[in-house]
């Protein structure tokens, strides 16, 4: 056990500043498993001879004399630091949310930039509920200050899929219950989008309880919500988005331009089957669900 601890400590200490120009600099928001997994997946997808350095946001200054060919910030904090460092090097962000990336890049200096987002395209959430719960066509969404901007896009995505969508906006946790009371009579499924004013440890239990009482399933945006009692979610792991970013980085180093910012191509489907069964839902197995989603994305 001691040697394992030593190994872990050694991993934490490896953050060397490069003495010469490298191909790729991976900037990690922090050295926890999620970021490490994404970084490992980026490296794993590069050509073996690619020169890679891994560093933290505070070490960006050390790149100044010999900037790398491509900067890969992993996480929002690393992305902000990378933009602030203003190295005028092409940038490929990974493990960031789409709205956050767009907000940060707006204030960033002009340079070729792209990203592989961690969050799913809105349509994929709706496709999942369409595939898993084809009878539930009245969709409700509870949006807070952070997610309100996605209302229009969500409406369009729902309309394209023939789903009836009702949206309620709340300013904070105290308004959630009232909003749900207004929403649930017109809905047979609730879709969640990331927003700390609505979704978090302090609110999830009460929301789930209300939904359970009304027999309304929740389509969430992360596996931990499914673990907490949401019915299903589509989500991507750090490893999946990391690999996708690594493939884009490899193409870039081979002389191709950076692709447009893109959502994850690979994803997992998480279903809380006990919750589904207690809501009286018959949800197909994960694999056919995934195949259905992929087919719809290819042939809308």
């Amino acid at each position, binding site marked *: 056990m001691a040697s394992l*601890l030593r*190994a*872990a400590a050694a991993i934490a200490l490896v953050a060397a500043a490069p003495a010469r120009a490298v191909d790729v600099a991976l900037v990690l928001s*922090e050295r*926890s*498993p*999620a970021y*490490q997994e994404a970084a490992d997946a980026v490296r794993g997808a590069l050509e073996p001879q690619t020169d890679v350095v891994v560093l933290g946001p505070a070490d960006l200054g050390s790149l100044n004399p010999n900037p790398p060919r491509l900067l890969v910030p992993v*996480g*929002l*904090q690393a992305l902000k630091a990378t933009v602030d460092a203003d190295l005028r090097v092409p940038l490929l962000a990974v493990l960031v*949310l*789409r*709205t956050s990336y*767009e*907000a940060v890049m*707006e204030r960033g200096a002009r340079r070729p930039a792209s990203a592989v987002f*961690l969050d799913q*395209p*809105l*349509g994929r959430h709706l496709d999942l509920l369409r595939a898993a719960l084809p009878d539930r066509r009245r969709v409700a969404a509870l949006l807070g*200050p*952070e997610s309100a*901007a996605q209302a*229009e*896009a969500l409406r369009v*995505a729902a309309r394209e899929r023939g789903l009836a969508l009702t949206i309620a906006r709340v300013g*904070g946790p*105290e*308004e959630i219950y009232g909003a749900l009371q207004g929403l649930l009579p017109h809905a047979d499924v609730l879709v969640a989008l990331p927003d700390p004013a609505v*979704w978090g*440890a*302090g609110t*999830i*239990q*009460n929301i789930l309880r209300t939904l359970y*009482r009304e027999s309304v399933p929740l389509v969430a*945006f992360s*596996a*931990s*919500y*499914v*673990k907490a009692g949401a019915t299903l979610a589509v*989500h991507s792991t*750090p490893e999946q988005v990391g690999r996708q970013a690594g493939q884009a980085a490899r193409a870039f180093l081979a002389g191709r331009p950076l692709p*447009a910012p893109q959502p994850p*191509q*690979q*994803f997992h489907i*998480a279903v809380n089957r*006990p*919750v589904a069964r*207690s809501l009286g839902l018959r949800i197909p197995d*994960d*694999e056919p669900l*995934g195949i259905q989603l*992929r087919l719809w*994305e*290819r042939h*809308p």
Partner: protein
Amino acid sequence: MENRSVVTASAADSDPATRPGGPTGVAAGPRRGSVCALVLAALASGAVQALSEGELLGDLPVVFSVARMPQPQQEAPGMVTVLDREAIRASGYRNLPDLLRLAPGFQVAWLRGWWGVATYHGLAGEFSNRVLVLVDGRPVNSEYWSQGIDWQSLPVAIDDVDRIEVLGGSNSATYGTNAFLGVVNIATRAPGESPGASARFTAGSGEGETVVRWSGGNGVVAARMTVGWRAGEGLDDLRDTWRSRLLNLRAEARPTASDELSLAFAHQSGRAFEGYATDVFNPVRERRTANQVLQLGWLRTLAGGAEAQVSFYESIDRHADELTLPLLPGPVEVNTNRTALRRSFEARLSGFLADDLRGNAGLEFRSDALTSLMLFGNPDARQTRTWRAFGNLEWRAARATTINLGLMAERVSLTRGTLAPRLFANHEVAAGHMLRAGLSTATRSPTIFEARFNQRTTPSGIPIDQLILGNPGLKPERIAAAELGYQGRAAAGSTQWNLRLYEERLKDLIVQVPYNDATVPPGAQAYTFANLETSRNRGLEGQVAFSPMAGTRLTLSHAAQRIRQHIPRVAHSAPGNATTLMWTQAVTGAMDFSLIHHRVGRIHWLEFGDDLRPIRRTDARVTWRWRDGPYRGELILAGTNLFGRYDEFRAPPPPETHRFGRRLTVGLKVDF
């Protein structure tokens, strides 16, 4: 419970987000600009911060019990250690006291194979009555054990436990008397959760069990039922084998959209060998227990999300222990049979009072009756009545600051009324780093035993020369505690800290003292109880959980403490240092193991306990899982105390050994 599969969209696919008119259409064409502009407008106004990936990657740690409302763990008024189903599974432990070894600051000992004691910050011997233990909101500290807990007789199966929230510190503000040094809140699984059936069989050295569960329901009614049989060989050198069986039922119904009715019934009965082969006054004999509980609840959701709740429970604990003492001129039949009956009625309201203020308030009436010919000299029940009014408020004073206020006004008929306030402030100094400061007070009312005990003769009328007489003038014990806490986590939760630095001042501690008056016969020795002692406890304790890579989790718990008390055995009733290191490792998707190492410093267990040398103990578990059609199986190999024997407890000379040797068990669990 969660099923996943990998789905790969071909890498050659065009990017749906950038394809005009593509299926997602979210970010396509001109709409993208407008969405973006909205976000930026919001950002410019300062109303919105960029969403961190932590929203998608993080866990959702929630605690329910500290203020009787769901709160993010880091915003709760106190340090809470959560043992959820995964932690319970990973530990391999099949007894509730053993699970408490994983909470920093707890001390656990088995005096018999069927009698475990768990206390927090010492001050316990055969009974631990300064820690409150609740099962689904119902206190299980029993008057017949002087508010201690007969863990093995609790009518609850480990397989039904959903989570255990352990609060390090006082919480009479929420739970009243006995929530003195710490609170253990055991919540069982909701009816209808994980529908289907499961069976578990465990056999090996030391202990065996068979547990069968069923759970099912529809949107209106849900139920679960558990039947279990357990048996154990007890400690190595004592005759203390035991067996126990239980039935546990819980059902919920939702007759309307705003009403929820709940019913729970549980029954446990058991037999166990008590006494020592070498002690003529405490000979080996069989004791029997039968515990039963009925719990009813009605919850109504009101306008604005407020909830009104009324609940009732009745619990009956029966204990039969009959022995023959070889006295002169002839053998004497003695029984310490007792029955404890508890009934409680509670009404509670909870909800938002303002945008940034929520809370709850309630009233409870409880009656306790204890019947024992031996303890009180006659067959009449001794009763206590408890009236309570309580409230909790959570005020989000600023975006990063939460203030928690709690207050309990309580009157226990054995003694005078008390007020127990609590004030905590939690402030997020940086994202994911929470500081906590708080003050709390708590009380422990005298037990029926301490206030009413009146043992002068055996039930057959033979005078006893060791008298214990209750003191009806006892005051409640009081504690005032101050703590500073820190809870921090990395964005993706790879390292989590939870620390507590505390000072607890205890006064009016109830102790047993010699007593003499005209009613004490010549030659007899009499004792009573008095509020005599004070104590000051200081310490630093906490837990660091670290996940250096996927599938690996290391949890280090440590408690360093000092009890300042002039009686050495009280000062040493908690170890100066106690450490637990737990390593859980997923080897493949179908196999994982845990290793747990405990190091506990010298302890002096009170009452008939003696100084116990430091303990080192290592436990391990390996689980293999498989799936075959509708069947999911688990094979569990578990070993406790893998290296050498140690004393779980020591009585003063002549030494009675309470040796704990190596235990190995094989378990099979099948879900279908």
